[in-house]
């Protein structure tokens, strides 16, 4: 890290959801290890992309950071303050600085509230009276996200999916946050609308200097949006690096496989990248494999991988560098972006 403390520092973050069963007395019979020992850092104004397949724990991570879920273990430090187990009262000032954008633009807006009420809601809750009043600020926010301020009194159902997502963005901006956690913010939208919202978020991130945790399964969108990228597999981060480094020079076998599986509209008869075929499914987080969790699908796995979980360590680079959790990392520079026909 370049001297200054990161805005968000997460170490060893763990969330196990207990599974209850049995008869006649129900007791805890196991735990879904949704997130297991996760380390993450986000600098002020930086956008971190968090990618992974469904069930890898990326959404749980987002909810832990925003403290919508109580972590089982680990530590979350926000702006130098330990908020891991902070009470509601202690959290209140922090919460106004950390905001969230949700995936489903239909479920995340109250259908009975007008757009104005939705967008000024956070100000009301936090008792903030901006200059010129809440309504004026709300209209301003609507304009910032590309909506007509005159739609202040309309209801969510009068808007399309993309416009609703803009309302969600305006709400997240209402308190001028320092950190926004966006959980799959565009995956419910049509391709042409996705691009509009991605551009909007990117402009806001740069102009307002907001730090972003951008959670998504779409590797191309994460590449477009993020400065740093972390790849998750089954509750753990397997690789994290600066964007270009990660996409051009992936070191973890899973990252390579994931990148190679993305179909690209290059329309060439010979596939530009060699596909790595992963077989089987992601194992259940109820009973994850011992050692390295990817070993059951990894073509390089040995006995060591079953015995010993690889730590997330730096393989190269300066600054935070390129970290990967693998006993046998790839030699790098094998899959270049210029391979296309």
């Amino acid at each position, binding site marked *: 890290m370049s001297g200054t403390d990161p805005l968000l520092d997460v170490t060893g973050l763990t969330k196990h959801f207990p599974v209850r069963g049995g008869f006649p007395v129900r007791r805890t019979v196991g735990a879904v290890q949704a997130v297991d020992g996760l380390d993450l850092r986000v600098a002020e104004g930086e956008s971190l992309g968090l990618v992974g*397949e*469904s069930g890898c724990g990326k959404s749980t991570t987002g909810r832990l950071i925003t403290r919508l879920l109580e972590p089982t273990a680990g530590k979350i430090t926000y702006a130098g303050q330990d908020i891991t187990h902070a009470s509601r009262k202690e959290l209140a000032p922090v919460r106004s600085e950390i905001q969230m954008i949700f995936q489903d633009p239909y479920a995340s807006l109250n259908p009975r509230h007008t757009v104005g009420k939705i967008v000024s809601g956070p100000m009301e809750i936090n008792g903030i009276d901006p200059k010129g009043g809440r309504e004026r600020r709300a209209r301003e926010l609507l304009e910032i996200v590309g909506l007509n301020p005159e739609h202040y009194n309309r209801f969510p159902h009068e808007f*399309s999916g*993309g*416009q609703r997502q803009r309302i969600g963005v305006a709400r997240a901006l209402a308190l001028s946050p320092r950190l926004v956690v966006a959980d799959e913010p565009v995956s419910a939208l*049509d*391709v*042409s*609308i*996705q*691009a*509009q919202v*991605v*551009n909007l978020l*990117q*402009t806001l991130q740069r102009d307002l200097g907001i730090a972003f945790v951008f959670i998504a*399964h779409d*590797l*191309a*969108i994460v*590449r*477009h949006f993020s400065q740093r990228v972390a790849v998750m597999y089954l509750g753990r981060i397997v690789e994290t690096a600066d*964007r*270009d480094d990660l*996409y051009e020079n992936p070191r973890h076998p899973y990252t390579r*496989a*994931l*990148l190679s*599986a*993305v*179909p*690209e*509209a*290059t*329309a060439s*008869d010979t596939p*530009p990248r060699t*596909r790595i*075929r*992963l*077989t*089987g*499914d*992601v194992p259940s987080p109820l009973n994850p494999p011992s050692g390295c969790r990817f070993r059951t699908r990894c073509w390089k796995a040995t006995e060591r991988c079953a015995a010993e979980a690889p730590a997330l360590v730096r393989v190269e680079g300066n600054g935070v560098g390129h970290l990967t959790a693998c006993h046998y990392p790839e030699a790098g520079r094998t899959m270049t*972006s*210029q391979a*296309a*026909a």
Partner: protein
Amino acid sequence: MNTPFLSVRDLRVAFSTEDGLVRAVDGLSFDLEQGSTLGIVGESGSGKSVTNLAILGLHDREHTDVDGEILLDGKDLLTATERELERLRGNTMSMIFQDALASLSPFHTVGRQIGETYRKHTGASRHEARARSVEMLRRVGIPQPDLRVDDYPHQFSGGMRQRAMIAMALVCDPELLIADEPTTALDVTVQAQIMDLLKDLQQEFGTAIVFVTHDLGVIANIADDVLVMYGGRCVERGTRNQVLRTPQHPYTWGLLGSMPSLDGPVDVPLSPIPGLPPSLLNPPSGCRFHPRCAFAEKVHGGRCATDSPPLEINGGGRGTACHLTAEQRREFFVDYATPQPN
């Protein structure tokens, strides 16, 4: 030239709703040969799913007007009786849906659901149907098929359910398979597996596939021919390379410009299509794309708002429905479209 296996001619589908008449498909034509794959691309509301339901005869007959011709192996499906369609569905033609969990019955085992179709069309016994189910599960790559055949859908993972649905669709070796966003709900690694599976099965059995998706990357991977739909009409069609490499229609340019890639330039903003997809209740006059089109004003006489451009076919099935002249398109495409690696 022999007659194509599936031939759709001037298909029009309209629903009467409380708010008025919705023209979901408005004059769509295409052909599909055996053993090849047609990719239909379009956003929500472009009419792609409605087209599929009309082919299979699964539309609500009371509230839907269907016009035109759908010829499957020379037989018109639109004039066929419900009984004839029942004999064809699941047997000669079948369909894979996006949401596998919603398309499988939670109360019956996977094996029974696969076997049911087989029994209906072949009159096989329970025992034979079960053996066939196991064979199908093995063919789509489910491990331990003889055990998993007795599982219920909730015991399968998302990718396995999709495989089970493919097994169900293919149990009678159909000649036409309609896949409606079959991989959209899946993770990329599983999506890649499913696409490989479909390609392998197609090679083996020569199935004709209509593959509907909004993802141009998936299209590049699986389709031989591509048809781009917008507002219920075909705006562009051609072979995969024609449409993806030298797209002719501003909407296709917009789609390509909206998609970030894994190896394109990063620090330029995406070039999205402004505005919203049209309402089919009250579609724009003339070219349905003109309110969102950056080039509408370049057309002489402002025809885009008044005249609907016909789909001009120029040999080999390549066609574009746009008023821009060929020279204009060449000029604008170079300026506008995403740089293609060459």
